[in-house]
């Protein structure tokens, strides 16, 4: 290998490490934020004992989960039982690979773009990995040899398959407008023009609803309905294995918030500012940091939005969920696609 190639591999490895570490940290503090937001929305003040504002709460929770007794049911398939929770976690960590976090940093004379893989199939990768995510839940649910878990797994599977379709269709409208599946292209196009949330409000709405379903967040958290399925797909899981499932959910939430921000809210674009002119004024590194802060801020808003919705809307009934997915969102996504096509055709003539 040449020196250039080694440097490339090292850079990407470092990025992978930073990316995973960062999403783990965000996920850990999402659990804290979830409890704080839940408390605030219910006129309580939430965790405030561990550290200032309860900021050490994630550490305490982690310690608790690690020190709890770990039980594997007697009749469970041991290999798959462990694989399920591991798969959920791995897949959750994988999705973030294609997100462009900001413009390039200048380190020495080297330009480092904080994006692990700028592939031409960014969209497809996200869709593919997201649908893999359900395997963790399904395998875990099936392997625990518990009827309720199995029901939870079944629900998760059919829910994610149902909502994958409208999600894919709305992404196709974005593809029609940008002509590229590359996430960095999509961000670049939004920097000069309008954000896609303005051009595609209906598409954004459908995508948002589908993301709720894909991340198993309320009101689409049917895989874990405790009043009808005991605990749902993770009934038989204990200690950190259970923690992994919950943690994966929070990572998914973070990544999907970032994806929403990237596709519909201009990614790392700073609103109302000419980024290139700003970059010449303050230097590439500061611009990259501001870009990153912009994307992270948008993502944080959507994480908050996920929590906000969770404590506002009750869970769907299962047939209503299927109704919404197949009879409402799918036709809507198709109509949205047709309208987009029509507009593009008229504009080109």
């Amino acid at each position, binding site marked *: 290998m040449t020196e250039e190639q080694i440097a490339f591999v090292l850079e990407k490895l470092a990025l992978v490490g930073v990316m995973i570490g960062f999403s783990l940290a965000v996920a850990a503090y999402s659990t804290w934020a979830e409890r704080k937001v839940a408390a605030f929305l*219910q*006129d309580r*003040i939430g965790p405030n004992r561990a550290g200032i504002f309860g900021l050490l709460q994630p550490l305490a929770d982690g310690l608790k989960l690690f020190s709890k007794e770990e039980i594997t049911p007697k009749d469970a398939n041991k290999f798959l039982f462990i694989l399920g929770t591991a798969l959920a976690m791995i897949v959750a960590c994988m999705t973030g690979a294609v997100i462009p976090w900001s413009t390039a940093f200048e380190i020495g004379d080297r330009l480092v773009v904080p994006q692990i893989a700028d592939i031409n199939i960014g969209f497809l990768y996200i869709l593919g990995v997201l649908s893999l995510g359900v395997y963790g839940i399904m395998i875990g649910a099936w392997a625990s040899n518990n009827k309720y878990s199995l029901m939870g797994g079944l629900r998760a599977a059919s829910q994610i398959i149902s909502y994958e379709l409208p999600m894919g269709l709305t992404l196709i409208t974005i593809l029609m407008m940008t002509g590229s599946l590359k996430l960095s292209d999509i961000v670049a196009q939004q920097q000069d023009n309008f954000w896609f949330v303005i051009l595609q409000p209906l598409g954004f*709405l459908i995508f948002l609803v589908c993301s709720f379903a894909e991340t198993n967040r309320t009101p689409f958290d049917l895989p874990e309905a405790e009043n009808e399925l005991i605990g749902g797909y993770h009934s038989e899981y204990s200690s950190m294995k259970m923690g992994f499932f919950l943690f994966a959910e929070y990572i998914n939430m973070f990544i999907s918030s970032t994806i929403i921000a990237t596709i519909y809210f201009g990614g790392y674009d700073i609103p109302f500012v000419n980024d290139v002119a700003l970059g010449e004024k303050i230097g590439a590194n500061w611009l990259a940091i501001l870009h990153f802060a912009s994307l992270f801020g948008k993502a944080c808003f959507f994480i908050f939005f996920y929590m906000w*919705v969770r*404590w506002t809307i009750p869970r769907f009934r299962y047939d209503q969920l299927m109704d919404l997915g197949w009879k409402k969102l799918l036709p809507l996504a198709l109509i949205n696609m047709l309208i987009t096509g029509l507009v593009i055709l008229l504009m080109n003539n």
Partner: protein
Amino acid sequence: MERITNRAKQVERKPMNFWESIYLIAIFKGLMITLRHFFMKKATINYPEEKRPFSPVFRGLHVLNRDEEGRENCTACGLCALACPAEAITMEAAERLPGEENKYREEKYAAKYEINMLRCIFCGFCEEACPKDAVYLSQTVAPASFNRKNFIYTKEDLLIPHPKASK
């Protein structure tokens, strides 16, 4: 059918229009309500640091009272035990010996006085029954314990400190 009150409300059963049936407006309204609560004053009281004042009629743990000279008021008449619906109070009486006049107010006193806090329902009947104003329910909550034995409060636990000795 004849109405009993005028409070009955006619339920609207007309089908939802388009905007109602997509629920988005209703969801948005709900979100605004929860967001308002985000900024509201919180009802939480940080318990060990902040304590909520009890109502003046709150009935907590018992105390056995002394008079202003520090003599025990209780004469072991047993009326409190008799009045107790949960039969939580037991006592043994003893006669005051010469030289103990500064310790007990009357000729008879309680050598043993026990309240089983697991049985006690904090009704306050003992307080009402006492002719000597000896037993009172204070503003303290009964503390928790891991051991059943700790819930039997003896005379030493109940007796308030000597007014002169505590100074």
